[in-house]
């Protein structure tokens, strides 16, 4: 009994000390009062050197937190436990957050550098007039292939994935809308379709892809492709860029018949406490030099037109990440669909995953 009391006391003292240290650390960050900026971004989605530079230039202290899915981020912002000053939702999530009144309307007069953004990427359906969001990066959905196992000509179009030669060779991304999109596009339907017959038709087609499907995974797709685990993968351009940096045998294709085009965007949530700092950071990131440095570090496509000339020509002219105007016209942006339809997409995708080879 005595021993037990001793142990418990020791644990309590230890916890007390930890609590004290924690308090001390927190006090340090908030000691600067308003000089703080809370950023909520995807994991590894900014050049850390830029945060340092921003802190150095402006004296703000940046608290950087990360999330791994739009939904997780949305849930956390809705609950409002932590107040973030900036967050980075994707296109359809911007639309959803806007509808749920979770965002602050941007004061464009405080964003003089917004003019650097390419007009092609402004005023899109998910945020008309860019009243609530500033484009951060954009990209596509496409096919990654390993040139040791597959010839380029074999993977130029979505329909080629159904070719029996790829039996048990393809890795898919675990995302209902993206995977139904690759079945919808060859059928000539919109990736935003709410028509149940079209969806069922696409789902049936997707089920036929099951024999070729090796696995349906998420972030791990990068690791697997880098290790030559599979010949072909369907994934986002950003992920592809990272894979290709680590394995020179990998290449990325955006099928010319069309694909999804996505955007990640800066927004200011309603709960933001340091708006001045948020605007300062947005302008900082819109500066061509910084945008270019960030794009080079992340490897995603920047919507910042002014930054393009600061990028090396090999990046700027890379059709894999800056596809031709012709291809871009065939790309479709996701719209936030009615809940009922989202439910249909997910049910059909779940059925596909349950579909045995």
């Amino acid at each position: 009994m005595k021993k037990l009391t001793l142990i418990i006391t020791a644990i309590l003292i230890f916890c007390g000390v930890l609590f004290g240290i924690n308090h001390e650390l927190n006090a340090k960050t908030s000691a600067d009062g308003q000089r703080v900026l809370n950023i909520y971004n995807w994991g590894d989605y900014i050049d850390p050197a830029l945060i340092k530079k921003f802190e150095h230039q402006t004296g703000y202290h940046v608290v950087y937190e990360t999330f791994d899915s739009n939904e997780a981020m949305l849930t956390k912002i809705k609950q409002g436990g932590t107040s973030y000053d900036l967050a980075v939702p994707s296109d359809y999530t911007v639309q959803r957050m806007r509808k749920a009144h979770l965002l602050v309307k941007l004061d464009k007069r405080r964003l003089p550098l917004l003019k650097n953004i390419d007009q092609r990427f402004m005023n899109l359906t998910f945020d008309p007039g860019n009243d609530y969001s500033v484009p951060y990066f954009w990209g596509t959905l496409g096919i990654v292939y390993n040139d040791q196992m597959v010839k380029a000509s074999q993977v130029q179009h979505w329909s080629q994935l159904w070719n029996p030669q790829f039996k048990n060779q393809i890795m898919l991304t675990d995302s209902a809308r993206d995977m139904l999109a690759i079945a919808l596009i060859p059928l000539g339907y919109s990736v935003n379709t709410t028509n149940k017959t079209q969806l069922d038709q696409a789902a049936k087609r997707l089920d036929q892809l099951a024999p070729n499907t090796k696995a349906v995974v998420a972030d791990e797709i990068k690791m697997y492709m880098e290790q030559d685990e599979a010949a072909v993968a369907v994934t986002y351009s950003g992920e592809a860029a990272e894979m290709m940096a680590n394995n020179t045998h990998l290449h990325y294709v955006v099928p010319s018949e069309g694909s999804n085009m996505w955007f990640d965007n800066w927004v200011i949530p309603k709960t933001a406490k340091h708006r001045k700092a948020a605007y300062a950071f947005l302008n900082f990131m819109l500066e061509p030099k910084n945008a270019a440095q960030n794009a080079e570090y992340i490897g995603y496509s920047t919507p910042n037109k002014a930054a393009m000339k600061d990028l090396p020509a090999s990046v700027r002219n890379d059709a894999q990440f800056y596809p031709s105007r012709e291809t871009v016209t065939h790309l479709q942006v996701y719209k936030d669909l009615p809940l009922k339809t989202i439910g249909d997409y997910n049910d059909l995708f779940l059925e596909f995953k349950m579909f045995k080879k």
Partner: protein
Amino acid sequence: MKSKTAYLTPYFLWIALFVIAPMALILYQSFFSITGHFTFGNYEQYLSSGVYLKMTVNSIWYAFIITVLALLVSYPTAYLINHLKNKQLWLLLIILPTWINLLLKTYAFIGLFSQNGSINDFLRFVGLGSHQILFTDASFIFVATYIEIPFMILPIFNALDELNPSLVNASRDLGASAWQTFRRVIFPLTMPGVKAGVQAVFIPSLSLFMITRLIGGNRVITLGTAIEEHFLVTQNWGMGSTIGVILILAMFVVMFLTRDRKNKGGQIR
């Protein structure tokens, strides 16, 4: 009397807040459709769609295999450890891996099983050629069993440890063979440990989710995967809760089947 209830108050509060309330909330949520209307539709969909029933059967089947395999490995191991000299040390070595994060262990298996992993390297070296190990049912069951084994060994070890050795000696003195002693004395007396182990392994196995994706490549879909998806991706909390209710029911069934029967004397025969 009064002081006794006072002592129990924290306990009841704890149970009410952290056991009963969450379960009630799950039950409540399961009656709402994705658009937020009260409905029995989730249960209807669960019972009629075929997808969910198939998933349930799959999950139970996988959980059953994992539990049986874990038991087959754990009982002899626990028995052996109990007869070793430094048994606490050996037990510690068994428990040690549970201190490592589940995901790290799973990633280690990816390194072993992948096309260019150690196992395929070895297979190629001995001339058997490389094989697809990842994303198969076998690899999923192997990893899940590996992860659950410590939770099976511990209760069995404790039961064996508490077993009065004089009972075993008496059995041997009275002429029972080693096998008879095990079957008639040791095994029945350690049954509570086995039951606790089955409880500790079967229920979590039903709701495994990260391993189904990382090792099973989502070719193995369990109820846990579906719940994760409904809560995080689909935002269909109603359906997720409905599956949660099913899991809670499954838990009660397992607890009932493995309960300690009252008439302890009659059990050993």
